[in-house]
């Protein structure tokens, strides 16, 4: 469960990306954060993932107040989330399998177990046959699926995504939608920042609509 109360984020220079936002996301819910470009969607996702620190307000995830955490505890909190970025942030100096193994290496899983779990994650997104491929040779849709495999390999309870279909054609975007829906169906909380109306039409999830940093 995610509870945000009066959440604000002001960047150096005074730009206020998120203004006094409060919401509750129940466990197992699928929620979309929508709004035009610059509405504060990405900032809100980063705040939930502890990548950004709120200027004020509180954010409680599974009973843990993220605003009150020590800096050294933040990496461990981030491991509770599976994070999918719009630009995927894949590493092109290693194979698809090694990309997916990274979160497991960070968690200290023995290599043999990490390989097994990474292959299982690749299988879930239909990329097991491409495990040895360098991400650079994968299509945009495949790269996004690889990013999802990396996000879910640690079996997170909460899957966060920032514009996961933003750079994809309709077919690839549809594949990604189906993958997120599949994870939602097995109980994973899915929070997606998007301006893609297909999500709403197809799955009728909960929606947080942002406008200039404020909830509409």
């Amino acid at each position, binding site marked *: 469960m995610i509870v945000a109360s009066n959440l604000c984020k002001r960047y150096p220079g005074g730009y206020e990306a998120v203004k006094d936002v409060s919401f509750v996301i129940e466990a197992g819910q699928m929620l979309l954060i929508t709004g035009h470009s610059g509405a504060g969607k990405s900032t809100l996702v980063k705040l939930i*993932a502890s*990548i950004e620190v709120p200027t004020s307000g509180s954010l409680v995830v599974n009973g843990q107040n993220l605003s009150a955490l020590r800096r*050294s505890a933040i*990496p*461990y*909190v*981030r*491991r509770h989330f599976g*994070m999918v*970025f719009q630009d995927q*942030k894949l*590493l092109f*100096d290693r194979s698809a399998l090694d990309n997916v193994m*990274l*979160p497991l*290496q*960070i*968690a*200290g*899983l*023995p*290599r043999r177990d990490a390989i097994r779990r990474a292959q299982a994650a690749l299988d879930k997104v239909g990329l097991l046959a491409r495990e040895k491929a360098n991400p650079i040779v994968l299509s945009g849709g495949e790269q996004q699926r690889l990013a999802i495999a*990396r996000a879910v390999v640690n079996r997170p309870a909460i899957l966060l995504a920032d514009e996961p279909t933003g750079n994809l054609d309709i077919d690839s975007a549809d594949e990604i939608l189906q993958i997120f829906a599949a994870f939602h169906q097995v109980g994973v909380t899915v929070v997606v920042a998007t301006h893609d109306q297909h999500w709403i039409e197809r799955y009728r999830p909960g929606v947080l609509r942002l406008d200039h940093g404020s909830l509409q």
Partner: protein
Amino acid sequence: MRVWFAQHRAAFVSAVRRLWSAPLNTLLSLLVIGIALTLPAFGYVVLDNLNEIGRNVSGVQQISLFMKIDASSKEVAEIENRLRQATTGKWRFVPKDEALKRIQDSEGMADIVASLPRNPLPDAFVVEPTNSDPEALEILRKEITGWPAVAHVQLDSAWVKRFDAFLRLATLALWMLAGIFAAGLIAVTFNTIRLQVMAQAAEIEVARMIGATDTFIRRPFYYFGALQGALGGLLAAALVVGALKLLAGPVGELMALYGASFALRLPGTAEVAALAGIGAFLGWLGAQLSVSLSLRKFD
């Protein structure tokens, strides 16, 4: 604990891979580090050998004890007993007759000695203490001077002090040189690691976003710095051993001209390990500084 070992193993393997992935860069860095460590290491070994030469050259760091001319054999025995108790090291008794015979055997001295009405030389002892520190020798000299039936105690203290002063000066210069080259080694590692952090910025950024701790990110760089330093230290040891082997022949010939037999002492296993350890420590220190500064931009 298993996780801790697995992560250290992974960091070590990653560091080895990074060294191996750019062999030319690695070789050049190792050469710079190796040469930086070779100069002070070579200086240390040379000083160590000079110390050994100082100990081995006849007449240096010896105390000559001359008995009174009329000292009895009982008094000589008493001095022998005191020497046995007071000194750690070697000593030998030179009877007055043996001393006179040595002079007699010297070229041109036979007639002069024959003309003497009686043996003018006293019984003597030559003491070579284990502790050749000038201050310790001086203390021993003063103690022996106060013993009964001792007429004169001679210590070539000026030579010893000069030699010791030279060694101390050279040691100080060596430490200064070592400090400068240590700073150089740290700088080389600092720069190598900085470039690596820049090259791996994407990986570091992603790793942090998905839950990597600072320790997890820093660890491979620490291993890299320490490994590079240790290998540089081993290279330096190899260069020192090679140089000493080349010098061994000429030094032996030179020492033979002074009537001494001397073999250059090569660094032992412990010294080679110490050199690798110093290299590893300095490499780790350079990596620590570099990573701390370079990772700030990711905060």
